[in-house]
């Protein structure tokens, strides 16, 4: 067939609606993939950028030793931005008052990502700034002003250097990090460090080289630098596991959503292509009698498919982009992040999806058209040999595999999803078949709608089974997505519950406890715990000094030291979020000196149950035996202790206490009151950190919901396509029944009954499948707790029946309304 003829046939088919559903299905496939991946692409970069703020850079190299110039030279050669910071604890003096602070010295390039926020008044809102402290000046945390009786313009001493306080430091991007590092901050210029003379051998120093720029350049740099041992490469995921994990899961979910969207659209494409082909058997028969050769037919219909495919791709890409722009606009108020420009990948992905969908899902049906026998024109009773199942299923499976693998870049997830769908189809296909066969179904006795429907279902058992499966899989995929979304968002929200403590108070002396508590109680929501804190260090393990022990068990380690001073506590019961994984927690009335260690800590220093440890607490020595090992919920916003001792060991030592409280954002001035009344206590503000985490969780949740809506649309399309696919058969049957005297009510009743049965069976299939898939995904991919969802067991079948019936009846309205004559004459 020549090109003009093909074009004309395509146009006719599109105009007459024959091609409509196929075109829409392809459009939805392309549009969904394009918009989801455009959005995900941009959101991913945005989230990455946002979370890079946690590092004030894209990557960091950190070490307790000075970072060689050579590292930054290499980074600059690769076109990367660099900045240097140095963090160390130091006493700072102002007149008679002194305070232990965490000093951060930065160069002029700091920070590479995110912004410093400074102001003129402690605890008041400030403004972002591009500057860093000039040489000779420092910026201080709000809490240092009341604690040390300072105001702007005053001078403080850091080591031997005298530095002038010029601004209040309100926020710094890379504030996160371990809980006990959050001492009050003093920000100074790196150039002033030598004159302080505090940097001596043995000082606790944390050098960082901040890196920013192109991903590839960063990775290449990582490959080329001699980092081990002693220099640690830090990315967002490593430095902020909470954010890292949320990002990982969100990515997996978005990809999975996109993946299911593509699968659903693929099913819709296959169904509508099948229907198109079936409706063209006669058409091809006529063309063949008129002299069209099989090659011509093949070429013609392939060109037609290609034409429709290209049209769908072009329109789909436009539609996808438009949709994504609308989404971005809609979410603009929610997503404060400026979205970076999209890459070309989403468009390529969209186009490839259209092409692969057309080839893998629609082509088998089109290929089949060339096998139509021309004699069919005079012998309508001759059917068309069914399409090779191997060809159609094989092509669909290969197409899905290709698409999904490319889309997710995760072969395991892809294969796993496909395998479970195939498995579910096999198991539930057989089940549906048996259900249909085993039911006591009566023959073609058109007395009631139910009997008519059941007879029809049984007669078309293969088609009915397929339809139950298709409906079932579609509903299942949607359920999977809804359940996972709920689980994910709940989990994220639970990590940072509303009203969770956002301020911690440490260094409360025993005689200050009541005063601080009553002040806090009046002004804020008090946290639940009150931990005693006692500073101490490990001095000996079994027969070795702590130093010797570490050298034997952990040589060449540039990381933390066993001998470092740590916060110790004692407790009667294990704190919340602590799980004992080895040994046993002491009994509440135990008088023995026992120790409980955090798992990683124990492993890092080669400590085991039964080891005896000596602690140096303010010069006094105590021995304790390790009797339990714990794991911690590092993601919970509560203080965590590596070492907890039994009351018998520590109770008699003087301790300071810590507590926590929740403060509304507008009431920060309370901190001033608190610190003026109790200048020696330390307040740690983590409200900014919590806000940052909540913002990211919020954004990711938005994206997740959005993907769900798009996939729901694909699902609806599959339902419509599937109902359309069986429409012709139903039409012919019901036309005949009406001609023989069946009333409209009978036909309507029969259709309703048929869809109710199909829908509820599909709902049952979907519920079983969804529970299975969700269970696997939760445990294997998302690392969430396994849980069943009893509420969907009833909801699935009922919703399935209702949705299928409504969509089915809507799609079959013409079947009930059109006069039987036009049905019999084939004029529908």
């Amino acid at each position, binding site marked *: 067939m020549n090109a003009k003829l093909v074009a004309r046939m395509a146009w006719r088919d599109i105009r007459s609606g024959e091609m409509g559903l196929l075109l829409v299905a392809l459009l939805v496939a392309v549009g969904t993939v394009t918009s989801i991946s455009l959005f995900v692409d941009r959101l991913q970069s945005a989230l990455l950028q946002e979370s890079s703020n946690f590092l004030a850079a894209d990557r960091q190299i950190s070490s307790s030793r000075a970072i060689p110039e050579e590292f930054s030279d290499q980074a600059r050669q690769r076109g990367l931005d660099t900045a240097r910071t140095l963090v160390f604890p130091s006493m700072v003096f102002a007149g008679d008052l002194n305070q232990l602070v965490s000093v951060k010295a930065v160069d002029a390039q700091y920070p590479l990502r995110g912004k410093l926020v400074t102001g003129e008044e402690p605890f008041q809102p400030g403004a972002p700034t591009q500057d860093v402290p000039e040489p000779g000046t420092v910026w201080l945390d709000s809490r240092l002003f009341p604690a040390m009786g300072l105001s702007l313009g005053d001078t403080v001493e850091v080591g031997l250097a005298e530095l002038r306080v010029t601004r209040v430091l309100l926020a710094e991007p890379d504030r996160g990090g371990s809980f006990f590092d959050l001492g009050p901050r003093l920000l100074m210029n790196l150039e002033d460090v030598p004159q302080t003379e505090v940097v001596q051998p043995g000082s606790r120093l944390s050098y960082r080289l901040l890196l920013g720029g192109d991903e590839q350049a960063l990775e290449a740099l990582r490959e080329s630098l001699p980092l081990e041992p002693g220099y640690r490469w830090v990315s967002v995921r490593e430095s902020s596991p909470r954010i890292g994990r949320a990002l990982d899961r969100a990515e997996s979910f978005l990809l999975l959503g996109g993946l299911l969207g593509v699968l659903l659209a693929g099913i819709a494409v296959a169904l509508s292509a099948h229907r198109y082909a079936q409706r063209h058997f006669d058409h091809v028969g006529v063309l063949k009698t008129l*002299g069209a050769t099989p090659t011509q037919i093949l070429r013609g219909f392939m060109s037609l498919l290609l034409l429709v495919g290209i049209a769908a791709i072009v329109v789909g890409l436009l539609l996808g982009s438009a949709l994504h722009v609308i989404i971005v606009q809609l979410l603009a108020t929610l997503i404060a992040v400026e979205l970076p420009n999209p890459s070309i990948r989403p468009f390529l992905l969209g186009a490839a999806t259209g092409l692969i969908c057309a080839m893998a899902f629609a082509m088998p049906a089109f290929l089949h058209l060339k096998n139509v026998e021309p004699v069919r024109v005079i012998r309508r009773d001759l059917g068309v040999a069914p399409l090779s199942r191997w060809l159609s299923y094989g092509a669909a499976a290969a197409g899905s595999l290709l698409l999904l693998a490319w889309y997710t870049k995760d072969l395991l997830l892809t294969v796993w999803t496909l395998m479970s769908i195939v498995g579910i189809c096999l198991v539930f296909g057989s089940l549906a078949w048996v259900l249909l066969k085993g039911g006591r179904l009566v023959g073609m006795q058109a007395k009631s709608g139910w009997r008519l429907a059941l007879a029809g279902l049984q007669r078309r058992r293969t088609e009915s089974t397929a339809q139950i499966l298709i409906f079932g899989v579609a509903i299942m995929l949607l359920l999977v997505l809804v359940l996972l979304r709920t689980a994910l968002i709940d989990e994220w929200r639970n990590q940072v519950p509303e009203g969770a403590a956002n301020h911690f108070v440490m260094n409360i002396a025993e005689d200050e406890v009541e005063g601080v508590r009553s002040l806090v109680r009046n002004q804020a929501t008090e946290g639940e715990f009150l931990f005693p804190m006692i500073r101490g260090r490990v001095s000996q393990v079994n027969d070795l000094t702590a130093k010797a022990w570490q050298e034997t068990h952990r040589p060449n380690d540039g990381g933390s030291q066993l001998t470092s001073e740590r916060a110790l506590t004692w407790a009667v019961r294990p704190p919340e979020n602590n799980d004992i994984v080895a040994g046993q927690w002491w009994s509440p009335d135990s008088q023995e000196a026992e120790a409980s260690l955090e798992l990683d800590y124990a492993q890092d220093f080669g400590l085991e149950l039964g080891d005896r440890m000596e602690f140096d607490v303010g010069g006094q020595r105590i021995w304790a035996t390790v009797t339990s090992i714990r794991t911690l919920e590092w993601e919970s916003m509560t203080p965590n202790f590596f070492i907890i001792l039994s009351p018998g060991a520590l109770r008699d030592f003087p301790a300071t206490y810590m507590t926590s409280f929740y403060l509304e954002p507008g009431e920060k001035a309370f901190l001033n009151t608190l610190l003026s009344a109790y200048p020696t206590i330390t307040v740690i503000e983590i409200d900014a950190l919590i806000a940052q985490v909540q913002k990211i969780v919020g954004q990711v949740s938005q994206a997740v919901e959005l993907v769900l809506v798009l996939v729901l649309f694909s699902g609806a399309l599959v339902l419509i396509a599937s109902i359309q696919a069986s429409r012709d058969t139903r039409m012919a049957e019901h036309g005949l029944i009406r001609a023989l005297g069946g009333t409209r009510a009978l036909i309507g009743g029969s259709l309703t009954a048929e869809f109710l049965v199909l829908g509820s069976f599909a709902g049952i299939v979907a519920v079983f499948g969804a529970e299975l898939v969700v269970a696997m995904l939760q445990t294997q991919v998302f690392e969430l707790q396994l849980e069943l969802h009893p509420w969907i067991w009833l909801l699935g079948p009922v919703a399935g029946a209702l949705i299928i019936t409504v969509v089915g009846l809507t799609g079959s309205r013409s079947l009930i309304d059109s006069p039987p004559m036009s049905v019999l004459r084939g004029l529908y």
Partner: protein
Amino acid sequence: MSRTVVSAENVEKVVQTTAGPLVILDGIDLEINQGETVAIIGASGSGKTTLLGILAGLDTASAGAVRLLDANLSDLDEEARALVRGQHVGFVFQSFQLLASLTALENVMLPVELRGDTLAQSQAQELLEKVGLADRLDHYPRQLSGGEQQRVAIARAFASKPTVLFADEPTGNLDTQTGDRICQLLFDLNQEFGTTLVMVTHDQGLAARCGRTIAIAGGRIQAPVYQPQQASAL
């Protein structure tokens, strides 16, 4: 002596059914010469439509040889048979078989377009005028009556200027009056184009208008009746 256009030699058609092989055609021999008008008659299930399908190259025989002009259809694959059909054969069917998605004009243009010929439109228009549908060119089949649809089908059949025209119960779906008019049209055009006409019918009146009648019963030719005076009159 005019040349043989269609011939069958010991043609058999057997189909496999669940109850065993079913013989539909059993040793059919026939020759049809250029310009002849031949009616194949027989009761329902006699095998006459199957024979027509095989003679026209729409179907293949289980055994025996079928020749259409110079082509031995038994030796050709579907690809080659399609080319022969496109080149030499026209069809008129009981159920019209117009493509619903094409207008009357486009339906008539189709066989010529399939052959890759140009100038299809003016020829098709001319043919539709001949069958009295000059004002229905842009109508779709569903907008036409049965008689009108069959007239479009006849115009389509002659559009490719076929050597042989096969007709399967061409008036079977029409009332007597319309059937007569269609029949007249068919014979008129047949005469005008000098086409060989092979028609399956159970209408005795229609059969009587043909030069020759071949009766089939139980898959065999019953009594070949040759009416040379009518054949030579064409």
